């Protein structure tokens, strides 16, 4: 669908927030509200190059007719997007994908994000702090240095306890956020980790560490995966990753775009 840019602002060098508007953009084809962890495919420009749509996660649902994305200028597609101004058009497909599952019984959500990985986690925080007050969320946000620690203020405004770590120590603890996460779990697990779930999104190495931690502590970890995409809707088989098929004990290929992008970290063949 053709959406209109409402606002497109640089947060800091190379990181942007863009609000786009179109009737019903906040709901899927069946009328279901876009949910945290889902994503959209954006086509910028009229040219055949860049050819393919680019996936961006729902960062915040502003209304049924308006959504926000947080994006990093990674290459040509996002560079073109960053040049759009209010009133410009962008072709948007979505919401797509499965979103973060919140199985019955979840009471404590550990939200772990690195860098731009905070994009879909904000939507989760919005949802939990808004519609699921029965769940307490704690956030762990890491980044190379202070600018890369995105969203921490918003998390705190929502009343979410938020830990931060930077590799250079310019904000929060110096080191990796997974270290803080580990400490947190160690400190609190005596109260029992039943009803806990870890939600992670960020650089691949971080996701691997989080998955390992989760496994070590016996906590469920739902992780948002990335992959190059062509169609975004499950038709091309281009975006698969290797996932454990529990039934047969062997690994099979699953599509990030519609079997995911969120997977049970235990199943991912890292």
């Amino acid at each position: 669908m053709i959406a209109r840019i409402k606002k497109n602002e640089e947060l800091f060098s190379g990181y942007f927030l863009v609000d786009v508007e179109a009737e019903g953009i906040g709901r899927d084809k069946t009328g279901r509200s876009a949910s945290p962890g889902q994503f959209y495919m954006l086509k910028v420009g009229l040219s055949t190059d860049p050819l393919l749509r680019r996936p961006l996660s729902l960062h915040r649902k502003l209304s049924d007719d308006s959504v926000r994305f947080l994006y990093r200028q990674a290459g040509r597609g996002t560079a073109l997007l960053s040049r759009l101004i209010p009133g410009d058009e962008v072709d948007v497909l979505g919401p797509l994908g499965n979103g973060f599952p919140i199985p019955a019984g979840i009471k404590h959500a550990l939200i772990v994000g690195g860098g731009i990985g905070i994009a879909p986690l904000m939507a989760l925080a919005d949802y939990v702090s808004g519609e699921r007050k029965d769940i307490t969320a704690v956030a762990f946000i890491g980044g190379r240095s202070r600018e890369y620690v995105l969203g921490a203020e918003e998390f705190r405004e929502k009343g979410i306890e938020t830990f931060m770590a930077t590799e250079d120590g310019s904000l929060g603890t110096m080191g990796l956020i997974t270290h803080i996460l580990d400490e947190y779990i160690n400190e609190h697990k005596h109260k029992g980790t039943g009803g806990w779930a870890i939600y992670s999104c960020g650089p691949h190495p971080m996701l691997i560490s989080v998955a390992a931690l989760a496994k070590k502590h016996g906590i469920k970890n739902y992780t948002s995966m990335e992959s190059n995409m062509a169609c975004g809707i499950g038709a091309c088989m281009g975006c698969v990753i290797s996932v454990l098929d529990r039934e047969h004990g062997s690994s099979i290929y699953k599509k990030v775009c519609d079997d995911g992008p969120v997977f049970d970290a235990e199943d991912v063949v890292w």
Partner: protein
Amino acid sequence: MVKAKPSLEVSIGPLALKNPVITASGTFGYGEEYSKYFDLSLLGGITTKGLSLKPMQGNPPPRICETPSGMLNAIGLQNVGVDNFIEHKLPFLAQFDTKVIVNIFGNTVEEYEAVTARLDKAKGVHAIEVNISCPNVKKGGMAFGTDLDSTYEVIKAVRNATSLPVIAKLSPNVTDVVPFADRAAHAGADALSLINTLLGMAIDIRSRKPKIANITGGLSGPAIKPVAVRIIWQVYRAVGLPIIGMGGIMDASDAVEFMLAGAAAVAAGTANFVNPLAPVEIIAGIERYLIENGIDHARHIIGQVQA
């Protein structure tokens, strides 16, 4: 001046289509995904993802990457297998008022034959498209499609195993497609699909690794359009079989260009990824072109380039 609506009907040999627009194999799944975006009955036909005798896992990821005005893929023909298809996917497709073209491939001539035999008995299959041109599998695929005798053998075997229309999907990765088209014709093909992807490769200069795990992949999209148009034009003039044209068709102008070059029908492939509504927009655009040019029948533009 109000003009009568032109007729969009075309035929691919014995296969009559309500309009010339088909979806290309491997770019439309088994139809389910796109059925959320439009009524599949609008299509002239649907070509399914390539099917083999047994289910296939396909190639390891990364499987796709973007290139200038194109993309590389090495899906490796991941598919559910012919039996599962007949049981679980075909009934869905059979609901729609459109022609179902089942794309098949095998590692051996016997496998092609066996898949065909099963489909021949299934209800709701309207034609079989024989892929002898996939660049992404070790055995079968392009190995058949770049050898004249194997081309003949495979098509002949399929021909003998079914009374359904047989469409040979040829490889563009040869010096001259015409002799291959000729052999396919002699082996009893009713029509040709042109073109499959060009063999390509891309390297990530940071990691110094190929961008797709299979190293090489098939290049599709607008980048290859001039090559597709040329091949269709060459084959149209030399060989008597109807052609399903594909390779970079993004919109109705492209589709008309392919028909002028000699395609009796056209397939949208990579275009579906960019715009799920591409096939329906192409149908509407072809109709508009015919009206604007006072042409009353889509088949009247086939091969009509003034060259």
